[in-house]
């Protein structure tokens, strides 16, 4: 396993500059590909573009189990932050048809919130993530996978510390404690939230069963609400604590660097609007709450690219980072970038 380089400032900068170029390529792709009446095109191109075919529940089961792995991670993080304890064991066990085994949660502790609003946000999200775990488990029934081993610790070797060092939120060799302050909690939540949104966004077109598609849509929106909440709070607090914005930007850059060459992440710092088809908007300073391209389409990530981020590794590996033993799922390998 190749760990994320800890002294990555110069390399990151180099990759980020390349990223700006890729973003404009991506816009070009969308303009061209969906430009001239994509829906009109479908009738003739159905064979190659693919209308929804027969439901493939095996694949759906695999996919939902993968998403459940992500939900376990988020739910445990919020549960510990809010209550000091994790999900009940009944919410972690494998279904009778699954051969997976329950992994342990490493680390995690209660946050002493300073801002009562942040505490209320955290409790809301914790409740909702727990409900989502329960929902996916009930939906998957006997096929449900157990929780994998999860690292949400706060030591110098913990996944959060590795990630935050890469983003220069803490210095080389220093521990980052997600539970030490409101700010650390928010930055940690930020690290995960947008990633899971991109996973659900990309999953939408892969799910076949209509009922699962409805569920996937509901979960996509729910995660985007959560991610927006976290980004908005960071942006607002960042107006007076500037480091929060630059740190969030750096975390976004780390995510975007880990997962390959496609531009699929954006920080929160304000920027001038550019390339809007409404000329009057161009040049105005806007926030960056939504991680989307100038086409207004929120980014998506394939599972393998999501795993690059959660394994904290830009190469093809089967475990690491937040999942020390990998996912409990059919796909356990991150992409080779």
């Amino acid at each position, binding site marked *: 396993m190749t760990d994320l380089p800890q002294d990555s400032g110069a390399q990151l900068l180099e990759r980020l500059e390349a990223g700006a170029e890729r973003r404009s390529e991506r816009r070009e792709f969308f303009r061209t590909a969906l430009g001239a009446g994509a829906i009109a095109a479908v009738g003739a191109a159905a064979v190659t573009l693919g209308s929804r075919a027969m439901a493939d529940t095996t694949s759906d089961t695999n996919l939902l189990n993968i998403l459940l792995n992500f939900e376990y991670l988020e739910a445990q993080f919020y549960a510990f932050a809010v209550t000091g304890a994790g999900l009940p064991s009944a919410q972690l066990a494998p279904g009778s048809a699954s051969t997976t085994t329950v992994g342990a949660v490493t680390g995690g502790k209660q946050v002493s919130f300073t801002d009562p609003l942040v505490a209320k946000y955290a409790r809301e999200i914790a409740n909702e993530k727990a409900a989502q775990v329960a929902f996916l488990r009930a939906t998957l029934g006997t096929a449900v996978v157990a929780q994998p081993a999860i690292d949400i610790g706060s030591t110098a070797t913990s996944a959060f510390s590795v990630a935050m060092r890469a983003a220069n939120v803490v210095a080389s060799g220093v521990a980052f404690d997600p539970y030490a302050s409101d700010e650390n909690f928010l930055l940690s939540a930020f690290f995960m939230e947008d990633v899971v949104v991109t996973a659900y*966004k990309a999953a939408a077109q892969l799910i076949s069963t209509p009922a699962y598609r409805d569920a996937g849509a509901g979960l996509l929106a729910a995660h985007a609400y959560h991610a927006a909440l976290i980004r908005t709070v960071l942006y607002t607090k960042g107006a007076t604590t500037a480091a929060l914005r630059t740190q969030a930007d750096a975390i976004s850059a780390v995510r975007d660097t880990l997962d390959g060459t496609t531009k699929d992440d954006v920080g929160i710092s304000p920027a001038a609007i550019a390339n809007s088809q409404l000329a009057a908007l161009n040049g105005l300073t806007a926030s960056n709450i939504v991680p989307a391209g100038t086409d207004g389409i929120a980014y998506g990530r394939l599972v393998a690219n999501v795993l690059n981020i959660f394994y904290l590794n830009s190469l093809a590996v089967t475990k690491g980072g937040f999942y020390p033993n990998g996912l409990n799922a059919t*796909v356990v390998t991150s992409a080779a970038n």
Partner: protein
Amino acid sequence: MNDSDILVPAPDAKERRRAGRRHFLRSASVATLAFGGSALLSACGGSGTSTPSATDSSTPTPSPSSTDTLNDQDSFNFLLNLAYLQAQFYTVAVTGAGLPNALIAKGDGNQTVQGAVTGGRQVTFTDPLVAQYAREIAADKVAHVAFLRSALGAATVAQPAINIDGSASGAFSALAQAATVVAAGAAFDPYASDENFLLAAFMLEDVVVTAYTGRQSTIATTLLIDAAAGIHATTSYHAGLIRTVLYAKGSVSTPSLLTNAGLISNARDAFDGSTDLDQGIVGDSVTSNISPLDSNGLALARTAGQVLNVLYLNKNAVVGGGFFPGGVNGNIKTSAAN
């Protein structure tokens, strides 16, 4: 595309993704050429009263995929109407002007009639953060209009008549009156203050999220599912942003924002039938309620008819009213009977 493709451990995923894009690009352009001016679209889009044209003889034999195409056109045109409404609201609030004609005209193969925008003016924002949020959302909504129009091509419906007026007879005021945010007959002016702007944005945002949540599983074409999911996520971020700002301002300095958001939510819920499809932003004593989710943690969904109940401000089956005085353009235009 085989669903299991994505599930195979793939060290070369990046390459496959690139190849997939190239493949898609090729397919899409070939198909566009094949359809040219698209007689299929002019025969079936929009008003349903179109006259067959000389090119109709070249219309391909109907197939299940063409039915899917027409259904997807209807869905995207429906969503485009919602995008017109939101884009006009935000752009006029931010810039004082609306969308250019090139972004509201009908496509070549569509027969719908373009409507005017009533009301709307620039907001003098007090909080610079609210101004920055408004600009970001405005740019995204304009991009959504452009994207949906681009995807629909010749089948694009024109912007319908839209009412975003802040006078006592405007749609925002009607909803605010129904919610008892203002007294009967009184004006609710979305452009008068940061707070009113945020509440007006709130009136629309969650409704559009529920529209996408409810519509997603009806979309047949893989590429369009992906595009709709992207707009869906973006709109959910917008809604989450607005709800968070209302909650924060309501909790710190302006408690009426919390109660008014709850009243507006109740009013929306009263239009769309007996099912609880809406939530305010206040949780219990120790939680917020930024995300309007069901007990499973899933975002709430509305059918197209229920969405139109809210935007027409009418619980009955009608074809216009409220924010769309002449109804939305396209084949999906009737609200549900509740």
